[in-house]
């Protein structure tokens, strides 16, 4: 999901004028998909980005709730929760208007978005969040394979969810034994660049 477009498995699902900011676009995707999850509106931008991307992907794949429960989630990005950190800092910036916002503070960690996805889909498998300079397909590939080899998880939701003042881009994919594409660094990189 980036620049006003949502693409799933190569198909464009939603497309909007890229001039629209992320928040407006996110709302549009939510309404377009006709979801009913009011908690969505309380999330910070990073969580919304993670949530939307995961929601679209998981809807497309029909996974049973038993499988979902064991799903592992491994996400990453560059800016951690900086986007929300700034917003929170604003609420404590001036001595005269000093009102730290609890609802914003709880999102000042990069893994909360992942938590929101887990809450929504009752996913209780292992979850980890990494901060990298750039999208790191090799790392994600190794991590997912390690989980599978050690019987920690049979399927792993992996990806990159980055948002800051400059823009946003997210890329999620499911690594599983019955996938159709080979689980290699090249394939992952190609899918990321294409999306």
């Amino acid at each position: 999901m980036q620049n006003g477009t949502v693409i799933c498995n190569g198909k464009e699902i939603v497309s909007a004028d890229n001039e629209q900011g992320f928040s407006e676009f996110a709302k549009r995707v939510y309404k377009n998909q006709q979801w009913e999850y009011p908690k969505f509106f309380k999330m910070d931008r990073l969580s919304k980005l993670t949530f939307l991307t995961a929601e679209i992907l998981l809807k497309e794949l029909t996974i049973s709730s038993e499988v979902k429960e064991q799903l592992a989630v491994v996400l990453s990005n560059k800016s951690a929760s900086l986007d929300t950190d700034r917003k929170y800092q604003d609420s404590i910036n001036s001595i005269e208007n000093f009102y730290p916002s609890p609802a914003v503070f709880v999102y000042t960690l990069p893994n909360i978005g992942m938590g929101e996805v887990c809450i929504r889909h009752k996913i209780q498998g292992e979850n980890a969040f990494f901060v990298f300079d750039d999208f790191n397909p090799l790392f994600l590939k190794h991590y997912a394979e390690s989980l599978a080899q050690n019987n920690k998880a049979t399927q792993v939701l992996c990806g990159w969810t980055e948002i800051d003042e400059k823009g946003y881009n997210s890329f999620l994919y499911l690594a599983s034994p019955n996938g159709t594409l080979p689980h290699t660094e090249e394939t992952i990189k190609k899918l990321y660049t294409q999306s």
Partner: protein
Amino acid sequence: MDALKQELKENIIEQLNLEEFTVEDIDNDDALFGDGLGLDSIDALELIVMLDKDYGIKLTDPEKSKEIFQSINVLAAYITEHRTK
């Protein structure tokens, strides 16, 4: 007090990101927490901040807030009695 109640509804919708609600959707006697508007513990904390910021009321006991936030009517009555702004 009616103006206050209207103001509260608007503020709550705005502060708590209740995107799918309008002022008309909130009845003065509706339960704010639990089944009513479905607010949660973080929302309660945000309302405590709102009480301080907009009405100058400082609440330090989160348990007390459960009584005060029962409904718009109860909240408006409490604010009218205790506001310093």
